């Protein structure tokens, strides 16, 4: 006689009352080993795989993907019947009872039949090598997904062993034609009086090795330096991982690499997740970065809105005179690459010492040769 095992929604934490089936890893008719992952579920607390409680064939799937059901709900049945599947109610009758002695032999024969029946479909259903679906994603890919709104499970990896790389995810982010931004156009933004603007001219000659060092690149570095403001209570929340660049919120942008953030900035409106994020505003005191493409020699000085403690404006990269150290003859003047960055802040809201920390962090990062290396191929 064959035994049917029921799979139910488990209790994953004391306060969890329900769970969502995110994906079935086995379909009706497929064989499953005891402990093998059967489905993926998602709860308020945790996303996890549910193992099969016993070996057998998936007889029935009772909850569809994306459906949310209470803890304890019946999700599936697993049994030992060879054929035909999906008739669990008739199971006891379909398997003839046998005396004790031959039972083992009969069970072995039934198991062999199951193997024979299921082997072919399973083999056919298995994805080709290198295209296996990934069940977990690295921190890097998760942040990139949050920032771009890309569903990682739909992206094919091009890295070693079929791994996802940044370019796969950034390439999958579908640019949406941005709606005209009306919020800023409706009324002139009130401007903080007494705001201070500091202009920084930074030698970025070493970035000439980077293809097309543009405002998006400088804006990415400027945005990633914002956590340098963390020590000020005024901007504690603004120093979180969400960034506001060119009027758009980039979720978790602070955790992206400079390269990925640059690409994200250059490709303004992302997919649906990105757009909905843009509708939110950064909580707490705002720090914004403006780095829209500009003529090379220009400087962008951002106006400081009242709810902003600091606004950073990034200009283009231009040729200009730079001083290079020379051990033999002393300092020498040469033609290098320069960029001007404007940092506007409200001294009443942001201590000047904190602003200075940000400014020096930003200049250091832009001047550091490690930046060019990070961006090199």
């Amino acid at each position, binding site marked *: 006689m064959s035994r049917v095992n029921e799979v139910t929604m488990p209790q994953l934490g004391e306060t969890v009352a329900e769970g969502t089936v995110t994906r079935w890893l086995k379909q009706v008719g497929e064989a499953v080993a005891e402990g093998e992952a059967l489905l993926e579920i998602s709860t308020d607390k945790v996303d996890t795989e549910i193992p099969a409680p016993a070996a057998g064939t998936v007889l029935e799937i009772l909850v569809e993907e994306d459906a949310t059901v209470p803890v304890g709900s019946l999700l599936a049945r697993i049994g030992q019947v060879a054929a035909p599947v999906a008739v669990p109610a008739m199971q006891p009758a379909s398997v003839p009872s046998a005396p004790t002695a031959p039972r083992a032999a009969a069970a072995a024969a039934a198991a062999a039949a199951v193997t024979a029946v299921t082997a072919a479909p399973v083999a056919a259903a298995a994805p080709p090598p290198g295209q296996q679906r990934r069940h977990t994603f*690295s*921190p*890097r*890919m*998760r*942040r990139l997904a949050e920032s771009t709104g890309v569903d990682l499970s739909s992206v094919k990896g091009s*890295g*070693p*062993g079929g*791994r*996802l*790389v*940044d370019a796969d995810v950034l390439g999958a982010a579908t640019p949406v034609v941005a709606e005209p931004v009306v919020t800023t156009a409706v009324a002139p933004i009130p401007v903080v009086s007494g705001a201070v603007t500091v202009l920084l001219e930074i030698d970025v000659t070493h970035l000439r090795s980077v293809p097309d060092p543009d405002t998006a690149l400088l804006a990415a570095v400027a945005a990633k330096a914002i956590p340098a403001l963390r020590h000020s209570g005024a901007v504690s929340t603004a120093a979180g*991982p969400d960034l506001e660049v060119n009027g758009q919120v980039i979720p*978790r942008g602070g*955790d*992206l*690499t*400079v*390269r990925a953030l640059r690409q994200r900035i250059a490709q303004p409106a992302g997919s649906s997740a990105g757009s909905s994020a843009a509708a939110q505003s950064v909580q707490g005191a705002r720090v914004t970065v403006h780095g829209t493409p500009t003529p090379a020699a220009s400087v962008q000085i951002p106006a400081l809105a009242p709810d902003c403690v600091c606004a950073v404006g990034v200009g283009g990269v231009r040729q200009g005179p730079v001083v290079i150290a020379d051990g033999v003859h002393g300092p020498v003047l040469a033609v290098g690459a320069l960029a001007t960055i404007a940092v506007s802040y409200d001294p009443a809201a942001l201590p000047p010492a904190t602003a200075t920390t940000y400014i020096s962090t930003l200049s250091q990062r832009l001047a*550091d040769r*490690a*930046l060019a*290396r*990070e*961006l*090199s*191929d």
Partner: protein
Amino acid sequence: MAELTYRDAVARGIAQEMARDERVVLIGEDIAGAGGVFKTTVGLLERFGPRRVVDTPISEQAILGAVMGAAMTGLRPVAEIMFSDFFGVCWDIVANQIAKTRYMTDGQVSLPLVVKSGNGAGLRFGAQHSQAVENWAMAIPGLKVVTPSTPRDVVGLMAAAVRSPDPVLFFEAKGLYPMKGEVPDGEIVDELGKAAVRRPGKDATILALGLMVPRALAAADQLAARGIDAEVIDVRSLVPLDTATILASVAKTGRLFTVEENPRLLGWGAEIASIVADEAFWNLDGPVQRITTPHVPLPAADSLEDLVLPSADLVAQTVEKALQA
């Protein structure tokens, strides 16, 4: 441009600084008349004379006590501790005195001294003469710690160490003494705290130090043949540590591997793994993996020493396995 061995480069670096600054002196066991047991100080006695190149009795404490006093009173001494394992008898003066003098005198007394030492394995010297002990040193605040991996870097980092206003422990990879490399003519001065990208790559970052650098490069060649483009970074200086270069590389590749000669527990790679987890967690595309000597005293037998030290094959296999996972 001249081709020098690593061991000759040590003498070249010291000579460069002794010729430049008469306050630089050299002191140690068998470093003068014998030219060093590893022949790293050949010719210095002849060139600079017995007042500046001084042999001592077999007493590491006396050597370091002397250089501490010399540094306090205006010289810029270089001391040799023949085998870095012998720091075991030196820690009171190194850890409690030399490392803390600037701090405890509120900056009134600094100690511009260098302690150079043959370090690590590869020569079948057994458990007491083969240890890689950089991580002992980097655990003590107040010391700088460097390990060159090429003849050129031996000269440049020695110069930087001698010119440092504070004590530097200079670990020479014994296994690299016969290594030859091009060394430019003229003065070479590096900056402490700068790592060197020895091989650029995009798929994985491999950090290595000293004897492990050539092995990491050989591993990268093997990996390239299998379609994996690894970046190899020579850490060069553990204190100060060039986190900017390391973090930039991790941001690029998303994967970090450390290749450490030291036994596993509390090796320098553990500290870097901690820094990367703290500052670049969201740039990581997989776990940081450390490739180290197991936590055992080093065996003397050739076959066993080869077995426990990280090899190019082991590095390549570990990286490939991790990237294909």
